[in-house]
């Protein structure tokens, strides 16, 4: 009995020390993790919106049909320059793909930046390369069908990665529909919550 008590006591002690160490590390890294996440977002926004510069941006949560997404709108001297759409899709090869799509005020795509994906390295992972998403740039819903070629669209798929290409393309398509609605109906309706992106 005494030996058993000792066994349990020691395991409890070890677990307690582990807990202390973990909470210490958590407190130490909490700020930096949050900072790294914001940096990541800023990097993504800068990458997809060449017009961003040092202009202020605003985060708007916008709802259109079933989709609710974050739109980061950029204005310069009260002129609307464009926005970045934070898009998500689960239709990829493995798990969520999260990416930003930059669009200017005319609805033309200015860039894409994938922040999260578990697509196969060397295959679907190539969606991160400008070689692939470069074909979106300068295109809008008017002159370009945002569907992969297999679905009778204009988007050339990544070789051997139609699933990934289709997932991102379709998500972009939906995002652009939503953006069109956002431009037409303005920020007046459907805004769930607006938030200042500035510090």
């Amino acid at each position: 009995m005494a030996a058993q008590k000792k066994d349990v006591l020691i395991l409890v002690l070890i677990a307690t020390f582990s807990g202390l160490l973990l909470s210490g590390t958590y407190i130490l890294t909490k700020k930096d993790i949050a900072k790294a996440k914001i940096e990541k977002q800023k990097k993504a926004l800068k990458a997809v919106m060449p017009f961003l510069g040092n202009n202020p941006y605003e985060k708007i949560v916008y709802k259109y049909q079933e989709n609710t997404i974050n739109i980061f709108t950029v204005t310069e001297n009260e002129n609307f320059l464009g926005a970045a759409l934070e898009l998500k899709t689960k239709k990829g090869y493995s798990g969520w793909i999260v990416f930003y799509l930059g669009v200017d005020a005319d609805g033309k795509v200015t860039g894409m930046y994938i922040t999260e994906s578990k697509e196969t390295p060397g295959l679907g992972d190539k969606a991160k390369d400008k070689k692939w998403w470069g074909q979106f740039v300068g295109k809008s819903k008017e002159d370009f069908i945002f569907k992969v070629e297999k679905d009778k669209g204009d988007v050339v798929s990544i070789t051997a990665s139609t699933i990934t290409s289709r997932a991102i393309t379709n998500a972009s398509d939906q995002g652009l529909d939503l953006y069109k609605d956002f431009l037409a109906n303005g920020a007046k309706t459907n805004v769930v919550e607006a938030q200042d992106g500035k510090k």
Partner: protein
Amino acid sequence: MVKNNENDNEKTKAKTKDRDPLPKIYADGLWNSNPVLIMLLGLCPALAVTSSGLNGLAMGVATIFVLVMANLAVSILRGIIPAKMRIPSFIVIIATFVTVIDLLMEAYANDLHGQLGIFIPLIVVNCIILGRAEAFAYKKSVWKSFNDGLAMGVGFTLALVAMGVIREIFGNNSVFGYNIFGEDFNNVLFMILPPGAFLTLGYLLALSHYINNKRAERKKA
């Protein structure tokens, strides 16, 4: 007879104490009982994350950290941890350090952390770490355990980097992200996919055993 046996045991005990000089610890970790190539431990990360040299290196470094820290902690606590409770204790210790490195990487190497994803938390179940805690650190001094962790970790890292680099060269036409053969090179895509991992591991195992056999022959001759 019994007495003789006991004497033998004592002798072997005394011998094993002398049998772990630092050069041997490092030779074991790096080559003679390399975790991946000889002991075939920790194959899950070795196969899964080595799609590029950098991924292999990052996984290796994370594992070195956990191995060294777990070995240290287990060795320091080896007098306190009762034999019956050693496995749960080891796992708690290992899981703690894995979570620590997970948090640290998320804070200071965010991109890399995103790429290695689930495989960092999975270091907990990497059998090298539990294996070294059980086979080495639980029995040996703190200093030796520290060196053993480092040696095994570096050996593991070298094997992972070798696999990552080979797969990256053939599958992605690059070494650590730098393009080498020019644009026209046809990538052998499946080298980056799971089958390529098994194939690369197989060839590396064959190579290391070939070298070892040759060395043994030369020793005989």
